[in-house]
């Protein structure tokens, strides 16, 4: 086994998500070069994790820009909701008026039929 072939195998094993197979492990156990690489990978991983606490401050104005964009989208959404609400109310009113008209027509028809029956006899 050549140390050069193990570069990415060691890189994969350093966080514990991949394990070294027996042949590789045996090689690493007896190879100071690979052990040194593994130590460097561990240092690298530790340094990477430490970056998590580092904050990079944005230039002024970013927050205002984000909020302005959100506000604009929110307003558009509100207007759309309002318009679709009005449309629904209009359609609802139209449906109610149609139903009332139809009911009225039925009542009138029924009454007029009842009124005509005695005359027919």
């Amino acid at each position: 086994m050549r140390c050069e072939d193990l570069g990415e195998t060691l890189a994969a094993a350093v966080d514990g998500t991949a394990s070294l197979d027996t042949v590789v492990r045996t090689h690493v156990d007896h190879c100071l070069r690979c052990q040194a690489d593994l130590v460097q990978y561990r240092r690298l991983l530790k340094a990477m994790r430490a970056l998590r606490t580092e904050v990079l401050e944005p230039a002024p104005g970013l927050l205002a820009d984000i909020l302005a964009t959100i506000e604009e989208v929110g307003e558009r959404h509100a207007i759309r909701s309002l318009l679709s609400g009005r449309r629904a109310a209009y359609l609802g009113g139209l449906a109610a008026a149609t139903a009332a008209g139809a009911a009225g027509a039925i009542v009138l028809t029924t009454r007029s039929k009842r009124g005509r029956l005695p005359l027919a006899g």
Partner: protein
Amino acid sequence: MTADLAELVALAKEGDQQAFEELVRATYVDTYTLALRLTGDEEDARDVVQESYLRAYKGLKRFRGDARFSTWMYRITANCAANQLGKRVKHRHDELDDDGAMIDDRPEHDPEAQADAGDLRRRLTSALAELPPRLRTVVVLRDVYDLPHEAIAAELGISESAAKVRLHRARRKLRERLFNGRDTGEEEQAHAV
């Protein structure tokens, strides 16, 4: 997620615009930090952050709350950054060859200056900036922000195994860069087949 953030998310999901704005205030520096690490460019990072919050605002009702809000934002940011980097490649014809050697001809980054600086964090930041974007994105999301391989692959639109390959390649390149490792790109290419 902290109780405050959870409460704000719940209110924002009910349509409380003020609550969403509070969420932005509480998280935007963190989101910007990630965006800058991924893109390596302040202007791109600002665009990515704006786009990320816009998407979060529009998609908040789909956020189930089983992950932390910040993790959800990281995923959105990763996706937006990948798109932004794609645009950059289209417009600027950036070189994205994973195996390309990291060339750094800035005098402040010569080996002697590095040895003098002796600051691992600073050298790491510099080495990250020099990585090809597709490698940098994966290694930052995994090793700095602890996102699972599956989530990284999903947000970048690649397979999980491709995400792992990129991660290991990125780690190898960073190690070489930071610790003057024994392998060079050419040497590895010679042994690649």
